[in-house]
């Protein structure tokens, strides 16, 4: 028995060593990394691309926007990813890091918009929130109720205290943790949006940007905001069990679970496909992906993948990505980015 095992394991080990020789010499599939928000869309395109062409199905990793850009910018060569998805635009610092590592030519493709929904169970009445309500309900420090220019620790326990028009239920919001891109966008768009509605806080931005950010971006930590984990499905399930709670998640989760949950209106606008597309719904953000031009031609199929992603049947008004909850761009914008992708126009950040 012993000898057999020994021979078997030696054989296996040598097999591993043999195969190793040509491991890195070529990669015949596209490697995609990046945002977990773009992941559901990128994977659908990847699958469609794999099934309708002779190329292998791309590999799509969900690493988060920042993590994806870091991997993407680490260099040129088969061991580095070809495309990274991002739920925000590339930062100047990341762009510089890319250039420092020899990734000089990047093609930027904007793919559409994503809305962030505030929703509660269908068992409760729908909520009509404003950005100011969201800020007052969730910030760690809020302006004192007497109207003076003073910040006090958030005293509000129920929505009714925030705004007399809202229901008399305790403030209990289930949302993503700080590591999530959804949280970043929520803080930037919703919290800051409500925060800015106080003129004197807005004025602080000119003098002390840090203090302004601290006031507007800090979420309360006294239990009213519950960090429910990265898993949006879990938040949906918890809402179903607790009709008094409000959840924060990507629009596609609202879209997929409409029989259980309902979106709140924000500033009077319902989170709908159309309202996010025309920009009237206030909490929405653009989604992007970035392509490493040096890899086009080396890794097979990148041009074809770009063509698939930017085709009307994918990202158009009635394309299959809209079935998954992607909010399409207006037609002219689509045409512009499709042309950019086709010509592989280089992104230049000043």
């Amino acid at each position, binding site marked *: *028995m*012993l000898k057999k*095992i*020994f021979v078997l*394991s*030696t054989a*296996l*080990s040598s097999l*591993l060593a043999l*195969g*190793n020789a040509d*491991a*890195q010499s070529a*990669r015949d*599939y596209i*490697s995609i*990394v990046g945002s*977990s928000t773009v*992941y*559901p869309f*990128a*994977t*659908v395109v*990847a*699958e469609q691309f*794999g*099934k309708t062409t002779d190329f*292998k*199905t791309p*590999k*799509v*990793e*969900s690493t988060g926007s920042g993590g994806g850009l870091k991997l993407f910018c680490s260099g040129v060569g088969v*061991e580095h990813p070809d495309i990274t998805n991002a739920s925000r635009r590339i930062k100047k610092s990341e762009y510089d890091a890319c250039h420092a590592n020899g990734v000089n030519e990047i093609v930027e493709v904007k793919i559409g918009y994503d809305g962030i929904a505030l929703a509660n169970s269908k068992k409760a009445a729908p909520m009509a929130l404003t950005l100011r309500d969201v800020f007052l309900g969730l910030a760690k420090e809020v302006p004192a109720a007497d109207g003076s220019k003073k910040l006090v620790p958030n005293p509000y326990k129920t929505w009714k205290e925030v705004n007399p028009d809202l229901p008399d239920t305790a403030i209990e919001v289930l949302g993503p943790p700080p590591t999530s891109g959804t949280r970043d966008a929520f803080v930037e768009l919703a919290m800051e949006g409500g925060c800015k509605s106080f003129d004197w806080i807005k004025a602080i931005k000119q003098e002390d940007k840090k203090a302004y950010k601290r006031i507007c971006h800090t979420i309360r930590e006294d239990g009213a905001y519950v960090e429910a984990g*990265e*898993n*949006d*499905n879990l938040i949906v399930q918890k809402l179903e069990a607790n009709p008094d709670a409000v959840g924060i998640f*990507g629009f*596609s*989760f609202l*879209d*997929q*679970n*409409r*029989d259980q949950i309902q979106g709140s209106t924000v500033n009077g606008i319902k989170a709908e496909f159309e309202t996010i597309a025309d920009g009237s719904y206030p909490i929405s953000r653009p989604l992007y992906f970035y392509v490493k031009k040096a890899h086009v031609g080396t890794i097979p199929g990148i041009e074809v993948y770009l063509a698939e992603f930017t085709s009307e049947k994918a990202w158009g008004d*009635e394309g*299959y990505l809209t*079935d*998954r*909850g992607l909010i399409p761009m207006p037609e002219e914008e689509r045409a512009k980015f499709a042309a950019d992708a086709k010509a592989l126009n280089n992104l230049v950040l000043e």
Partner: protein
Amino acid sequence: MNNTNSSSIAGNAPGKPPRSRTIERVRSGLKKRHQAERRFRLYGRVAIWLGLAFLALLFVSIVAKGYTAFEQTYIRLEIDFSADNLGLGIQRDRAALSRADYGGLVKASLRSLFPEVTSRRDKRALYALVSPGADFILRNQVLEEPNLIGITKSLWLPANDDVDMFIKGHTERTSEDSGRLKAIQHRWIDRLIAEGRIEKRFNSTFFTAGDSRDPELAGIRGAAVGSFYTLLVTVALSFPIGVAAAVYLEEFAPRNRLTDLIEVNINNLAAVPSIVFGLLGLAVFLNFFGLPRSAPLVGGLVLSLMTLPTIIIAGRAALTSVPPSIREAALGLGASRVQTVLYHVLPLAMPGMLTGTILGMARALGETAPLLMIGMVAFIVDVPSGIFDPSTVLPVQIYLWADSPERGFVEKTSAAIMVLLLFLIAMNSLAVFLRKRFERRW
């Protein structure tokens, strides 16, 4: 009765009846002591029953949520494989056939079933009843059998996940158009059911396909094969290295400070959180050696680092349990030390070592954290065909599905958990079997 106790209580003061007092004290305490013992046993039983109850709850909830995933709703459609419908010209070679418009076949068939549907909006809703994967099923059928062209055939095609969820009772019919399915689609489904065109069948796709973003097309084959390759690398590396290390440390190494240090470190390594090994893998295997991301090779390397301490510790325990008389007898008959170990000690310790290895493998099979760092948490459709292909593993697949917005993935998640548990139970039973079958006691 007093006589028997006389010696133990001889020191008591005379005059009083000391013997009976002690007896009484013992007797009065007896009831309490018995009660305490009964209570203790009760606690033990409650603990066990509580554990079993949680286990049962876990299994029941997983099975209750997941068993429906082994079935899939199919819709019977008459597909007219005419060259016109396919948009085929005179050319009938493979390339032309693979490019033909198979989606059009499904749409044409649906239109002929519901000729009253005319508006563009309604047509879109109608086409959405059938899975987008139906096109590829038809395409593969035609590529396999090109003489299907020109024939009308009745085929069962998978329904879209929204229809599937409704038929299985996971989503409710809503009065307005607020649900995933619109009222008009419900009317069509009712008609299809009445005509016997909807049926639930065994979901073989679940076991033959790789991952997909359409729940009705998603399968666990890719993840299962990925797990297999990863574990293959793990066992090929960690078993021989682990056994060699255990044998050397136990049988040959001198006892000194250095070996003591190594021993302490091995014991500590066994308790290191697995994510740390993932970081190590990222730094060493990916960044330094430049091995491919997401490959089972790297996953296996990282997991073997993680299981090595477990195997070494189990191996050393198995070696110590071999009685010294065996070694002494072999040495006494003139065998060298290597011969003694290889032919006498190791075979006797092997069952214990194998048990340790299998339990280590079972732990590696359920691991996701270290794989996160080396890119195995990824959407991969193609079933991997070797240890260099990008792949994912079963627990990662569970994680990815649990995070998907589509409702259909809820049952798929539970079904994948069931498959993973099945593998774990099988591996643990093998370990128990090996122990029972080959273990020797002295």
